Every structure is written in structure tokens, then in C-alpha cells.
């Protein structure tokens, strides 16, 4: 190939590529493009649910598969005085309220949770960033906790409100981490309120005293430092209205992929 042809080819490819690329970047800023691409999430969710249904279990691994160091991500230590006070007393007075669309609101202490039948599972944690870690989690399956509160028929989603502050909402109000699952995922047998990791009391960096494990979802769904669980018909009235802290930043609500 002569130099001029090579240069022409390079320039043509680079030019076309750069134009397409900056086009895609500009399109990414447009709400209608975000909405259109985001719509596909519903298709993905429906199709994956056909395959996985309500009860397909995430793979459980052997003890020997447990990662030597389980990476902690997101908030590593909530920066509030209240949380520090709870941590100093070993979360003795920590309570998790279960409310919203239920017949019988609950307020559960750590002792209450630990008195309920527990489940231990060695599972793989997949972060949206791309890495994975295997760890052993112990906790109370969420399904019987919800059943004890007797959900009303109109309840469709389970919200998890957390103790870690995440800056401010556009309104100026303090924002806290929150997440949501639909009832199918919330009542899955491996969805637990975990209070132990690898046989130890759940460390602060992993969400002490209680975090969510939803094993068929990505890590950002698994809220840490849980203080309040609320059953709702939809999540539009909370914070940014997208059902979770990262969802409000543009991440998909469906985190099965």
C-alpha cells in the first residue's frame, strides 16, 4: 500500500470514527436517548425472568472458594454521629422498622433478627464495575420477615432505607442511600438480611449491622446499613424517583445484568 493511500485510509477511518463517536457522546446527553435505551431494560428484565423465574437459585460455592479479601465498595463508614454512637455500642439499640403497605408494622432489633431461622450461603458478589468476590453470608431470609408484617395486596416493591448519607438532593435535603426490589426478587429464597460475613459479625465497611443480599442482582442493589424497610405500590415519590441511589444517577433499576 502506498503511503498516500495508507494516510488517506487512516484519515478517512479516523474522521468517520470521530464523527460517530462524538455523535454518540452528544446523543448520550439527550434525555430521549437515555429513555429509549433505558426502555430496553424492560425487555431484558422480562426475558431474563422467563429463564430465571422466581426461584432459580444463584450458584452456591464451597468454603474453599471464599475470597481471601472481600472487597468493600461504596460507603465504608457512614459519617454521622448517630451511626458512630450505634457502632460504639455494638448496634445494641439498632432497630429496623418494617412499614408502609403492611397490616402489622414491625420494629426489629438485632436480637429479634438473630432469633429467627437463619440462612447461610456462599455466593458470588458481582459489582457493576465488573469484578467479583465470593463470600459466606448469614442472615434472615427476607420473605418470612415481610410475611410477618402481612403485606397489603397493593404492595409491589420493597424499599430499603439506609443510614449512610450520600450528599444532598437537588432540593437541598440530605440524601441517604436507598434501594428497592420488586416482590419477586425480595421474596427469593436467597434474598436475606445479612448480619454475618465469613462467620464474623458483619464489618462496618460491609454494612453493619445489617445489609441486604439479593444474589441474582448486581452489588448496588444490596443496600448496606439498613434502618427501614417499606412496602410501596411504586417508588416515584422517593428522592430522585428511580427506586435507588444509583438508579437516580442513571443506572438501571433492573440490575440482573
Amino acid at each position, binding site marked *: *500500500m*502506498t503511503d498516500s*493511500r495508507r494516510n488517506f*485510509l487512516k484519515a478517512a*477511518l479516523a474522521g468517520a*470514527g*470521530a464523527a*460517530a*463517536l*462524538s455523535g*454518540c*457522546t452528544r446523543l*448520550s*446527553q439527550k434525555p430521549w436517548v*437515555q429513555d*429509549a*435505551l*433505558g426502555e*430496553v*431494560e424492560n*425487555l*431484558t428484565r422480562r426475558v*431474563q*425472568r422467563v*429463564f*430465571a*423465574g422466581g426461584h*432459580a*437459585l*444463584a*450458584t452456591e*460455592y464451597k468454603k474453599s*472458594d471464599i*475470597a481471601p*479479601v472481600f*472487597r468493600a465498595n461504596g460507603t465504608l463508614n457512614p459519617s454521622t454521629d448517630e451511626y458512630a454512637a450505634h457502632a460504639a455500642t455494638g448496634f445494641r439499640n439498632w432497630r429496623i422498622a418494617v412499614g408502609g403497605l403492611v397490616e402489622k408494622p414491625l420494629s426489629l432489633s438485632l436480637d429479634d433478627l438473630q432469633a429467627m431461622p437463619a440462612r447461610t450461603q456462599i455466593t*458470588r458478589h*458481582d*459489582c*457493576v*464495575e*465488573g*469484578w*467479583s*468476590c*465470593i463470600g459466606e453470608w448469614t442472615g434472615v431470609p427476607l420473605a418470612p420477615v415481610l410475611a410477618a408484617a402481612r403485606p397489603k395486596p397493593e404492595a409491589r416493591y420493597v424499599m430499603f432505607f439506609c443510614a449512610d448519607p450520600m450528599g444532598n438532593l437537588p432540593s437541598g435535603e440530605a440524601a441517604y442511600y436507598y434501594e428497592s426490589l420488586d416482590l419477586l426478587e425480595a421474596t427469593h429464597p436467597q434474598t436475606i438480611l445479612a448480619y454475618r460475613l465469613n462467620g464474623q459479625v458483619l464489618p462496618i465497611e460491609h454494612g453493619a449491622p445489617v445489609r441486604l443480599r439479593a*444474589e*441474582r*442482582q*448486581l452489588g448496588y442493589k444490596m443496600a448496606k446499613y439498613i434502618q427501614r424497610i417499606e412496602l410501596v405500590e411504586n417508588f416515584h415519590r422517593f428522592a430522585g424517583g428511580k427506586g435507588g441511589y*444509583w438508579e437516580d*444517577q*442513571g*443506572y*438501571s433499576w433492573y440490575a*440482573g*445484568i
Partner: protein
Amino acid sequence: MPAGDQTVSRTRIPSRLRKALGLAPEGPHYLFYRHGWIVRLTHWANAAILFVMLLSGLQIFNAHPALYWGRSSDFDHPILSLTARGTDDAVAKGVTQIGPWDFDTTGVLGASKVDGQMTARGFPDWATIPGPQWLAMGRLWHFAFAWLFVANGLMFLVWATWRGHVRRDLLPTKDDIRHLPQEIVDHARLKFPKGEAAKRYNGLQKLAYSAVLFVVAPLIVATGLAMSPTMDAAAPWLPWIFGGRQSARTIHFLCAFSFLAFFIVHIVMVVLSGTWNNLRSMITGRYAIEGERAP
């Protein structure tokens, strides 16, 4: 199939330039109908789809620019990593690590300029969709276009299998394999088939197209699905056959770069063997063959 029509060149273009550009030759020739409309449609759709898939994939990769083997990430021993060195305030150097080896790739991999400022980034902003670091948007592009990739690919494969295109034109024959050494020598000398022989794909072409269609494409879809925690619950064998989710992610990455390597060789071959003739045949379907049409 439409009959090839004799064409007469009207303008005088030097024959060397004519050849270089792949214009129809001055001598006797005819236009041969080489690519059906489904091939042409799915080819160009695939080009656009793969462009978005590759660049949005690099955006996703940039969220954690390291690859591992196995089920989980052994953070201290990645197979490959693109990292930045220096202080938090002043990124000085980009390093690409492959196994035990480190390479200084400052400016391109590991660290590159964003708005004039050297920044820690796996792949540079001219290689990702969207340009800025924006994982959420990269994922939206990637997962939307993944559906298009599968739909477009299936449309082609179903048609190509049904119409015998796969068996007749794409799968290498024993003869093709036997002639491979000669084929390689001819390609190295930039000697391309002419006349009747130019109507068929040669052995190297068949091998390359078959590898991309029947190995890399299915593999990239399967390894992509193996990274989905819900799919893994539905089909636990899926990550297992690849040696774990992180291995699947590594194979996914290798497949993406196999597509890129294929693309580069493909473009070079298109240019070397007559740019316009090849382009025309993939746009209108018609490819100029030197010589007289066989009766």
C-alpha cells in the same frame, strides 16, 4: 439473479489509479451479482452495531480496567490491568500490565488526557462511548445494541443456512484447506484471484468469515450472558463452561479484540484488492469481473 451488463468506461482514468481504486477495468469485464440484499443489509447494520458495542464495551471495561481468570477477582494478580501511577493530584504515567510484564503506555492506556489533563483511565476518551467516564450510559448503549447484534446476526445466519450460503460459500472445503499454504503466499504477495476465481471466497477468506461468524460471535454472546447474575442463576453451567464469571469476562474481552483485529485486516484487504469494486459489491451487490462472461 439479474444479468451482468457490459459497461463501457466513459472517462479516461490512468489504469494504475483505476486498479488502485478498484474501479471497473478498461478492458473487457462484466458485473457479477455477488451479494444478496440480506447480506448487504446485515453487513452494514453489523458494522454500525459492532462500532457501538466495542466502544461502549471499553467504557464498561474502564470502570474496572483489569481482567482475571476464575470465578472471582484475585485483585493482586490480574491477567491484564491498565493502571495509572503518580499521585492522586498528578497522574504521571499509564502502565499496561500483562502477566508479569509492565509496559509504559502513558497517553493511551492507563492514563490519558481528558480536557488537557492527564487522567487515570483504562482506554482513552476517543475510544469509548460516551467519551467521558460514564459507566451507567455505557451500559445502556451496550445492552440495547446487544439485542440488535443478536437479532441482526440471527437474521443473517438463518437466511444463510436456509439458502445454502453457509455450506456453499462460507465453510472451507477440503480443497480450500489443501490450498491454504499457497493462499497465504498469494496474499502476502498481494496477488488476488481474478476472473472466475474472484467469484468465490478463497480459503483464507472462508476461514476468517467462518471463525468470526461461528466461533467469535456466539462466544461473545455466551460470555456476555455469563456475566449476568440473573442468567447465571437460570443457567449455572454458563459461567462454569468458561471457568467462572471472571474468565468469561476475559474471554469476552478477547473476543471483542478478535473482532477488532478482523475489522482491521478486513479493511486492509478491501483496500488492497480494489476498494471501489468491493464497496460497490457490498452496496449494490455487483462486482466487476475481468474478462468475458462465460457463455
